[in-house]
């Protein structure tokens, strides 16, 4: 476990050593931003709509004791901004993108495509890993901001249509109680989630051995490790900002 962690840290540092190479080839990062980010928009939109709707319903259910209706906006909106959208969307990105990255690089490893890069004098870690890590650091926060917006709108609509909370009350609650600290508390952790997801996914891809079975094992290890690390980071940020 300690050896694995050491290898992972060294691998990530080695990847960042290729910053000069990637800066001379920004198209490598832009291509990954398109693949990891833009192509994730449909699934993120779908998930965000349902996240917002279910959050509004759950808060309304807990307000049955007779608390004012604007609490749906105050509590639901804050929960979405601080915790629900950043965590759920990051985990969704791990499932959709992280597994894809590990499988793609793992397949390249077992079919000798990575060896081919090395024989041509191209540092495979700089060429393949760093653009993905940098794109993940940018893409995860961007997807969370997008999800925040969609989820808040979906929550407002579902509050109005399903539990009869006027939109003006919802917006009042949100504006009155959601602070900049809430928004930042939700967003500041997302680049770290992106870094964790990107670096772990490429690391396990590069560690792949033994054909298709090895690719499967790497994907499982990558998804489980990324998800666990994201939850640990989430707790650390929550403890630091909201204690």
């Amino acid at each position, binding site marked *: 476990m300690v050896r694995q962690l050491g290898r992972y840290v060294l691998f990530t540092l080695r990847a960042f050593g290729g910053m000069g190479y990637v800066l001379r080839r920004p198209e490598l990062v832009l291509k990954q931003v398109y693949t990891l980010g833009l192509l994730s928009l449909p699934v993120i939109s779908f998930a965000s709509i349902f996240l917002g709707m279910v959050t509004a319903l759950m808060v309304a259910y807990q307000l049955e004791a007779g608390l004012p209706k604007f609490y749906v906006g105050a509590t639901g909106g804050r929960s979405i901004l601080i915790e629900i959208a950043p965590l759920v969307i990051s985990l969704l990105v791990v499932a959709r993108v992280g597994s894809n990255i590990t499988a*793609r690089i793992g*397949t*390249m490893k077992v*079919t*000798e*495509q990575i*060896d*081919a*890069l*090395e*024989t*041509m*004098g*191209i*540092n495979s870690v700089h060429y393949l890993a760093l653009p993905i890590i940098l794109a993940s650091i940018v893409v995860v926060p961007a997807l969370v901001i997008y999800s925040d917006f969609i989820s808040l709108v979906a929550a407002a609509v579902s509050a109005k249509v399903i539990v009869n909370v006027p939109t003006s009350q919802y917006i009042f609650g949100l504006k009155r109680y959601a602070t900049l600290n809430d928004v930042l508390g939700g967003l500041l952790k997302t680049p770290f989630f992106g870094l964790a997801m990107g670096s772990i996914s490429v690391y396990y891809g590069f560690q792949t051995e033994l054909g298709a079975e090895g690719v499967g094992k790497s994907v499982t290890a990558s998804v489980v490790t990324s998800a666990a690390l994201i939850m640990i980071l989430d707790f650390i940020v929550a403890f630091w900002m909201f204690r």
Partner: protein
Amino acid sequence: MIKVSGLSKCFSQQKVLEGIDFEAQDGRRVFILGKSGSGKTVFLKCILGLLVPDTGKIFIDEVDITRLMVKPRFKRKLTRIRQKIGYVFQGSALLDSLSVANNIALALDSKKLPWEEQNRIIDEKLDLVGLDGDVRRKYPAQLSGGMKKLVAIARAIAAEPHYIFYDEPTTGLDPAMIARITKLIIELSEKLEVTSLIVTHDMGLARRAGQDIYFLKNYTLSRPRRITRLEELYE
């Protein structure tokens, strides 16, 4: 010239190569024959520095690359040596996400050439291996096994290497494509004046194109006296 002395390699407890001495003179077509699993690919990968040998020395153009493999600070020197070698992988190893043209352009990455110049080289190398320009926009998944192999050869020669390594160049191909690849190996070695190192179990290929032939058996290399007696070495 490539010179290897006392090369040994084990994986865990499994011995693969032991005490190998080998020399490939400039401009020759050197074949290494052996059964599947005899360690031919491991031998090639050791020469390239993709695998670090346990013992022994490997010299490429009189540079001891075993010394360069073990220390990260020599990585650039090792990269410069590798750029003298074009490698044709057994499974072609073309990058799936790139078109044929971009796969070949990768080999020119370190030269930092303008795109027009790269294009000219890509067309020239595709022409040299007998592929027409239409193939350049295709992706590896759209090519047959034989065409992939030809593109892999075009990629291997793109950076004008001094050496070309072929790992099982005819495996899994139909007879017509085998004949085409055999002819190409001979033509390229003569036209480009490169040293070719070919590992294969294809006796016919060795007989038609081989100049120096080695046999890898029982972890070590030997030189048969006559090509006509190659089959006996499998027994």
